[in-house]
């Protein structure tokens, strides 16, 4: 018992809560492979690893990149609030193409060996490109064949630059210049370095939560929870007297236990999830109420206190089990069908129900057994009050 509580405390201390994006703020993006593209398993794995590398280059702490279904990727970027930046980083296909004067692609970004930030001859930001062995040949062919004509540099279908080819370039080096800010240039370097996505991806959902909203939600729900719990403690204490106080201690243990388990299993805490915890406190009381009412009945039937407690727990148990399992069924369905915040709610609700069964059946029981030895008369009195008359 004590060990469990200490463990719960240690877990909360060592692994603080994993807050969902709705609470800590950040950008959530859902991408789907373009309809025209073939989203093979291999391609999608490529998409995930390239997006991962781009994000790492961005320096986001604890990003989440995961596949959903066969054609989708979910990206979560905590702490990022610039939506445009997120879209550019995650959503860009980053296919660089060099086109000949007829508009055919002569070579593309897959032949790049090295990409670097540089400056043009006017000191403006530019991007230095270096091709690999095959790329050197293709680039030499292009520049030899179309000497005196123009080549177009295209990124994701958008023309970056049109350049006059003055002489053949045989060493495989090129520079993209013109009209870029240093940030844009740096961003493009990252995209080109990590290569293009094997499948073009469309952004089908973006959710961006600012840093203040999450904080506000946490403090609001904390206050709601705190007041709610105090009212419950007062109600149970006044209604059930001594046994009620014991149930209240059990309820506080329950809260510590739930928070400990949630932090131990690394559950992601979302706003609906917090509501789930608060709700589960209200429902956790139910098991105690069921047991106490049973004990009262047994006492009213003339049983001695000890055997009344024994019988009360035993008979209430099946009720508690049946009624909680049905709620667990809904929680499980929510977990498998829901996404994001709803899933967080399912986890906290499920953990809450299991923990409440445990505390009511074992912890409250332990307290009652301990106290019944010391204060048998008070207990007996408090368990024989306030019953509704049977009709």
């Amino acid at each position, binding site marked *: 018992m004590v060990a469990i509580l200490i463990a719960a405390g240690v877990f909360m201390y060592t692994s603080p809560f994993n807050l969902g994006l709705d609470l800590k703020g950040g950008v959530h993006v*859902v991408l*789907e492979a373009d309809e025209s593209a073939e989203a093979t398993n291999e391609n999608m794995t490529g998409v995930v690893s390239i997006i991962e590398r781009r994000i790492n280059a961005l320096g986001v702490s604890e990003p989440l990149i995961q596949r959903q279904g066969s054609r989708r990727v979910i990206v979560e970027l905590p702490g990022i609030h610039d939506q445009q930046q997120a*879209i550019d980083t995650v959503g860009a296909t980053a296919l660089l193409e060099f086109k000949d004067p007829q508009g055919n692609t002569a070579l593309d970004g897959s032949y790049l060996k090295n990409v670097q930030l540089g400056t043009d001859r006017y000191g403006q930001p530019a991007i230095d490109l270096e091709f690999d062995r095959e790329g050197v040949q293709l680039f030499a062919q292009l520049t030899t064949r179309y000497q005196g004509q123009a080549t177009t540099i295209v990124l994701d279908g958008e023309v970056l630059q049109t350049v006059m080819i003055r002489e053949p370039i045989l060493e495989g080096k090129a520079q993209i210049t013109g009209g870029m800010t240093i940030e844009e240039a740096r961003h493009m370097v990252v995209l080109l370095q990590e290569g293009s996505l094997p499948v073009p991806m469309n*952004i*089908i*959902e*973006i*959710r*961006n*939560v*600012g840093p*203040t*909203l999450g904080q*506000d*939600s946490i403090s*609001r*729900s904390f*206050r*709601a*929870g705190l007041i*709610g719990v105090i*009212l*419950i403690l007062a*109600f149970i204490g006044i209604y059930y007297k001594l046994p009620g106080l014991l149930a209240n201690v059990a309820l506080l243990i329950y809260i510590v236990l739930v928070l400990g388990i949630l932090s131990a299993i690394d559950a992601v805490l979302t*706003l*609906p999830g917090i509501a789930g915890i*608060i*709700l589960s*406190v*209200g*429902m956790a*009381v*139910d098991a105690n*109420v*069921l047991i106490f*009412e049973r004990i009262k009945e047994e006492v009213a039937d003339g049983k001695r206190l000890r055997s009344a407690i024994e019988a009360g727990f035993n*008979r209430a148990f099946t*009720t508690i089990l*049946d*009624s909680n399992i*049905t*709620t667990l*069924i*809904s929680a*499980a*369905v*929510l977990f498998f*069908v*829901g996404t*994001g*915040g*709803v899933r967080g*709610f*399912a986890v906290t*609700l499920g953990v809450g129900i299991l923990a409440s069964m445990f505390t009511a059946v074992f912890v409250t029981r332990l307290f009652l057994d301990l106290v019944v030895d010391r204060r048998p008369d008070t207990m007996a009195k408090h368990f024989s009050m*306030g*019953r*509704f008359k*049977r*009709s």
Partner: protein
Amino acid sequence: MNFVRYRKPVFLFSGIIVALSILFLIVPGLNLGVDFTGGTILERQTARNVTTDQVRRIMDEATPGLDLSGSVVQILDKPNEFMIRTRELRNADIIAIDQAFDAQLGSLVELRTDVVGPVIGQELVRNALIAIIVSALGILAYISWRFEYRFATVAVVCLLHDVLIVLGFFAITGREVNSPFVASVLTVLGYSINNTIVVFDRIRENMRLTRKQGYEVLVNNSLNQTLTRSFNTSITTLLVIVMLVIFGGSAIGDFATALLIGVLSGTYSSLFVAGPLWMTWMERKK
């Protein structure tokens, strides 16, 4: 208290409420949020307090060529915080709108931006329906196994009763329905069953003890024996839910309101509908 005596007016009352709820679901129907329909939600805070007309005007001016007349603008918890719900916007448009707000209303803070494509919304509708149907079937199966099919059927009828009332309430009040709403409906579903089970559990137990007294006495005794529990549990659950409604703010208020309606309806149906309905069925059988 005699719960069974007034069963006819109770059934009539419940029937009317449920019929009205279904009617409200058809006209005016649920106010589906962007999670379901696709679209954009912008929540912003500015230095100055705003009116909805002001927000609309600035938004229209910032996006010439876009028809945003179908947008919904709402002032949030504070007079300088507002929410815009509109069609799916491109990021360039959002940036233009934000710049206009910043210029005209001062120090813009971005609270939340959601852009949801239509595909996601359709999937959410499908998933929500699957979730509710699978839960109901799972519960039906479990209760049929632990009790018998009549208890299970009545429990599911009560569950639908409660869920329909929550849906009807949201339809008639025009509150927006989003994905957390699905979670609250499923919680109502679990809670409703939970209450009904406690009553049925007692009926089942008393049935073994006393066979001769007739269903009316059996059901009424069982309800009275579990009355204190039903009452106390509803009070403790309602205490926290009401606190969530009062202090939760806009983000969680609707979620908590759905729970509030559901728990009230669940308490009522488990006391006045479930037992008497089961009894009526059993007496017909004879």
